C-alpha cells in the first residue's frame, strides 16, 4: 500500500495544546513522524529584553501554566548567578517545598490527561481531585492556584503562613493513601497494560543523543536527576533517590512519574523538618553585568536559563531551554513501527506542555 502523510493536529485531542504531528503511515503502521510546532510562539526571549530583570519573573511563570513555580525559580537562579546574590537559607527551603508541590501538581495534571488518552476517564477525575489539594497548599503559601509569581531574585516573595507545615503534612499523609488507589487503578487495568507495556520504546543511547531529559530519560534506566547531579538551593541537604525504570516504554514513563510523586512527598517532609528560621529574601541589585546559566530539574526535564546582562537593568539576552522542545523532536524515534492508534498513548506519555515548548 502506498505511504502517505497524515496531520494529527493542530486541533486534535492528542496534542494537549496546539501543535501538529505529521505522521507517515503505511496502512496502520507509522513509518515516520515529524512534529510541527510554533503555534503558541509568543516571542518570550525578545519581550524579556525590554523588561527589567524582576519584571520577567511574572513572564516566566506563564511559560508552562501547569508548572509555573519551577520555571520562575530557574529564571531567578540564573539572575542570581549573574548578579552574584545569595538567597537566605530559609528562602532556599521554601523554594524546595514550593517546587516539589508544583511538581506534584504537574505530574497529577499529566496523570489526569493521560488517563482519558487511554480511555480511563476515572483517572481524570481522581487525579484532578488530588491535584486540588496541592493547589490549595500552593494557594495557602502564594495566594494563587496558578501562575503564582512566587520566587524572587534573591529569595521568595513571602514567608510561609502560620501552620503551613501542619497542612502540608496532613495533605501528604492523605495523598499517600490515595496514590495507592491510583496505582491500583492503572496497574491492574488490563487495558492500560496492553496499551503501554512495550509500546513506544526508546533506548538509553538514543534518548541521550537526542537530548531527552527528565522522567522520559529516567524511564530508560539512566539515573540522571539534576537535583542530585548539579544540586541547587537546599537539595544537597535532603536525602532522596531519583526514581529509575529500565524499559524505556510508555509504562516505564508512567511508573517513573508515580514514583517521583512519592519522592516529592518525602522531600517536602524533610524540607519542612529542616527549614531554618530567618529572612526569606535579600535585596538584589537593580543592574547586572556578565553572563551565567543555571539549570534545574523541571517537572518535564532539564530547564536551563542562560542570562546575559550588559550593565543595564534589563537583560541583554535570555535563552530559555525547554525540555519539551528536545523531547518532542525525539518522539519520532518512539513512534516509528507502532500503530496509528498507539500514537496517542505514546505522545501522552511524553508529557507535552506547549507553552514552554513554543516560548
Amino acid at each position: 500500500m502506498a505511504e502517505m502523510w497524515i496531520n494529527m493536529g493542530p486541533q486534535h485531542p492528542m496534542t494537549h495544546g496546539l501543535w501538529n504531528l505529521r505522521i507517515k503511515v503505511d496502512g496502520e503502521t507509522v513509518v515516520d513522524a515529524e512534529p510541527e510546532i510554533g503555534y503558541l510562539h509568543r516571542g518570550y526571549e525578545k519581550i524579556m529584553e525590554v523588561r527589567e530583570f524582576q519584571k520577567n519573573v511574572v513572564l516566566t511563570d506563564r511559560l508552562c501554566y501547569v508548572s509555573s513555580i519551577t520555571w520562575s525559580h530557574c529564571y531567578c537562579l540564573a539572575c542570581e548567578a549573574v548578579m552574584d546574590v545569595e538567597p537566605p537559607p530559609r528562602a532556599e527551603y521554601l523554594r524546595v517545598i514550593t517546587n516539589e508541590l508544583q511538581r506534584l501538581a504537574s505530574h497529577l495534571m499529566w496523570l489526569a490527561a493521560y488517563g482519558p488518552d487511554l480511555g480511563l476517564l476515572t483517572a481524570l477525575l481522581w487525579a484532578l481531585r488530588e491535584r486540588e489539594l496541592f493547589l490549595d497548599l500552593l494557594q495557602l503559601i502564594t495566594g494563587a492556584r496558578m501562575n503564582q509569581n512566587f520566587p524572587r531574585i534573591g529569595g521568595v516573595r513571602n514567608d510561609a503562613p502560620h501552620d503551613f507545615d501542619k497542612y502540608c503534612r496532613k495533605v501528604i499523609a492523605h495523598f499517600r493513601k490515595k496514590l495507592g488507589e491510583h496505582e491500583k487503578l492503572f496497574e491492574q487495568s488490563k487495558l492500560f497494560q496492553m496499551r503501554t507495556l512495550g509500546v513506544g520504546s526508546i533506548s538509553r543511547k538514543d534518548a541521550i543523543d537526542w537530548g531527552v531529559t527528565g522522567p522520559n530519560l529516567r524511564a530508560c534506566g539512566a539515573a540522571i536527576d539534576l537535583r542530585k547531579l548539579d544540586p541547587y538551593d537546599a537539595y544537597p541537604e535532603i536525602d532522596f533517590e531519583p526514581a529509575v525504570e529500565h524499559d524505556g516504554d510508555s509504562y516505564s514513563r508512567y511508573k517513573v512519574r508515580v514514583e517521583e510523586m512519592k519522592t516529592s512527598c518525602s522531600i517536602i517532609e524533610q524540607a519542612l523538618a529542616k527549614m531554618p528560621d530567618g529572612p526569606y529574601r535579600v535585596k538584589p541589585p537593580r543592574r547586572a553585568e556578565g553572563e551565567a546559566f543555571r539549570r534545574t530539574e523541571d517537572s518535564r526535564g532539564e530547564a536551563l536559563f542562560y542570562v546575559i546582562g550588559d550593565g543595564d537593568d534589563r537583560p541583554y539576552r535570555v535563552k530559555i531551554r525547554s525540555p519539551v522542545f528536545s523531547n518532542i523532536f525525539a518522539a519520532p524515534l518512539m513512534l516509528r513501527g507502532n500503530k496509528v492508534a498507539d500514537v496517542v498513548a505514546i505522545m501522552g506519555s511524553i508529557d507535552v506542555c506547549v507553552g514552554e515548548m513554543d516560548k
Partner: protein
Amino acid sequence: MAGEGEILARLKEKFGAEAFQDLRIVRERVVRIAVDRTRLSALCAFLKETLDMEHLSSITAVDWRDHYESVYHLTSWTRNVMVQINAWIPHEDPRIDSVTPLWSGADAHEREAYDLMGIVYDGHPNLTRVLLPRDFEYHPLRKDFPQETDRQYVSRRKIGGGG
C-alpha cells in the same frame, strides 16, 4: 574539582592554550570556552568522542551588534561536568558549522537559532524555520529588529509628560 580540572588540562594538551580566546573554570562542574568558529568542529568532536560530552543541552545565538556568538551548552553525564562553548561569528557572514553529525538533538536547536537569529548552520540536513511561519522574512532576535518600545511600562512622570 576533579572532572573540570581534567577537562581543562586535556583541552590545553590537545589544542594548545593559544587556540582559545577564553578557557577557564567558571564554577564547580562548569568550564567555559571561547573559540573562533573555524575551530568549533574539531573542538566539539574531541569533546564528544574523547571527553564523553554526550548530552547537548542547548544552542543559543547571541547578537553582540559587532559580531554574533553561537553558544553551546554540553553536559557529560558520566563525568558530571558541563562545558559552555562561545563560538565567535563575524557579523557580515553569519555562518558556522553544524554539530548535527555529533548530536542528533542539535537539529532542532540549530533550526531555532537560525529561525530567530538568522545564523546559517552549514551541513544541517534541514535548516528551516521551526517556531515562526515559513514565509516570515525577518530574524526577530537580532538587535536591529525593533520592538514597539524599548522599555515596557514607562510612567508619564519618567518621560517628562507630567502627571
